[in-house]
């Protein structure tokens, strides 16, 4: 009987010891879990801040990109519209030049063009090309100018399709000087475009 009670006491003692041990282990584990949660919280907070910062940075970049591209697109559309207007102005100006054949100012312009063109080619014998309407005028001007110049001239039988002016070729056809109004406009187009654009934008004379 006594041995039984001793055994029971021992069992109880072991049990109680184990219980205390387990409780302290559970307590330690609980404390550790609390600490882990606390640590994770700060890590999470840092991670969260990092993600928010990175998202803010991305949003800022995206904003810059969208604003930048929109401004650029708007500017590009304006450039295209301006170009259309400039081209329209050119077409109108060309049409007006086409109808200016009978004006006295055109005759003096043609005289200047021919007088400039003949020596430019640097050949003693040249062929002159012009449009159908100008052929008589050119003949008249040549008749007057060849008296002063020693360059032999001939008017081509083949009229060319241009607004006005002349194209001068050396007799051997190796050199051509294109002094037609079309070519002059083409040559001066960049400069004229600048002035037309200024006028269209309403800034004419601002810089002059």
């Amino acid at each position, binding site marked *: 009987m006594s041995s039984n009670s001793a055994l029971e006491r021992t069992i109880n003692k072991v049990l109680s010891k184990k219980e205390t041990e387990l409780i302290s282990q559970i307590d330690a584990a609980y404390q550790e879990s609390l600490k882990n949660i606390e640590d994770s919280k700060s890590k999470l907070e840092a991670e969260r801040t990092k993600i928010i910062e990175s998202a803010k940075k991305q949003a800022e970049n995206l904003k810059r990109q969208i604003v*930048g*591209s929109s401004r*650029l697109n708007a500017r590009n559309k304006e450039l295209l519209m301006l170009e259309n207007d400039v081209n329209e102005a050119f077409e109108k100006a060309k049409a007006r030049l086409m109808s200016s054949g009978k004006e006295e100012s055109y005759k003096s312009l043609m005289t200047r063009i021919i007088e400039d063109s003949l020596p430019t080619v*640097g050949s003693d014998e040249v062929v002159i090309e012009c449009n159908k309407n100008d052929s008589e005028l050119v003949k008249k001007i040549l008749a007057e100018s060849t008296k002063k110049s020693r360059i032999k001239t001939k008017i081509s039988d083949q009229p060319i399709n241009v607004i006005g002016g002349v194209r001068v070729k050396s007799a051997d*056809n190796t*050199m051509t000087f294109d002094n037609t109004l079309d070519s*002059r406009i083409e040559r001066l187009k960049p400069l004229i*475009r600048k002035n037309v654009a200024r006028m269209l934008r309403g800034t004419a004379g601002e810089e002059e």
Partner: protein
Amino acid sequence: MPETTAGIEYTKVAEIKGPLMVIDGITKASFDELVEIETSEGERRLGKVLEVGFGKAVVQVFEGTTGLTITGTKAKFLGKTMEMPVSQELLGRVFDGLGRPNDGLPDPIADKFLDVNGEPMNPERREYPTSFIQTGVSVIDGMLTLVRGQKLPIFSGSGMPHNILAAQIARQAAVVGTKEDFAVVFAAIGVQYSEAQYFKRSLEESGALRRSVLFLNLADDPAIERIITPRVALTVAEYLAYDLGMHVLAILTDMTNYAEALREISAAREEVPGRKGYPGYLYTDLANNYERAGRIKGKDGSVTQVPILSMPADDITHPIPDLTGYITEGQIVLGRDLFRKGVYPPVNVLMSLSRLMKDGVGEGKTRSDHMEVGNQLYDLYSRAQEVRALAEIVGRAGLTGTDLKYLDAGDMFENYFLKQAADENRNLEETLGRAWEVLSTLPEGELTKIKDKHVKQYYKGSK
């Protein structure tokens, strides 16, 4: 030249040879005059006069002579040198290597027409560059400081991230203390489409495209065009800087392709070749481009040049980097070893140098300890490299305590100071802060290049 004398068209083509065309029966032509060539099919190309004499003119055709025939080809001499129409509207535009629009938009409406060869800068009017540019890249800001008006090339090798670095500089470059942004002029000379696209996208994403002008001569574009690309780009850069008062960063990549194009023309002209077949005037020609960087007294703007050149076989003694190094004010050399280690930017600081750094840093410009910190970092890394070499022979066990500290400091220098993300923008305080953290791993007595007062103020290590 008066406009009426322009435009004589010649049909007598005597010879076509490589990128060159010889025209006979010339009565009037001048050196460098622009020539418009019309093929028998009506296609138009551009060229310029290289030589004139005995009734002949040698014309260099930019788009190449493929498809041109002796009969039926016409050459119109335009009576002017090549010009670039310039105005503020150029910002945000994309052009080809000859300065023609490449973005589907019309020709820019010009404010001025400028000769692409530029005008030599009056040396007396040049202003010495002294203003610090913060690039946000630690190794550049801390040790190879870029200043406004400087020409600082990047010497790279094939496959290395020079374009990523250049794009980062372009996006982040800022004048400290002002809200001024840099205008970027980017000239792609014979680069791949993907590289040019990367650059464009990078500027677009950072919103910097609207203050940029891009000139793209891609790898599949005619090589001869490459002679003109840096010239048109620098003409625009000069206009933006000196006429509009902007601070301009001109990035020219890849100047090696430019030199190759020069060699091609030189060979076709049968000139006496110099080193590796490049013409004897390679130095002068490169200088013509590089010297277009700078500042002018009385003008607000500046042109800062970052030319990029890839060194064939990473050979720094190759004529192109060699001659470039004589002209520019230092160089940033990218190292293959660092690149293999995954360090970005892989700048080999021991081979790199910014000659103008001393004038752009210090009290009143950046921070009083800046120059000393830069020098000490050079010293640290150089010593670390020596110790690394020694450790390979004797092993770590054979090193002294100080050597071991240098070994660790060298690693920290690479991984903490040098290495950074391609989108990481560090300000100067952060850069110098990191530099001091690296330096603080050494014993205080090793910091021999820094004044005591700065060591007292910034040193964080053990005494």
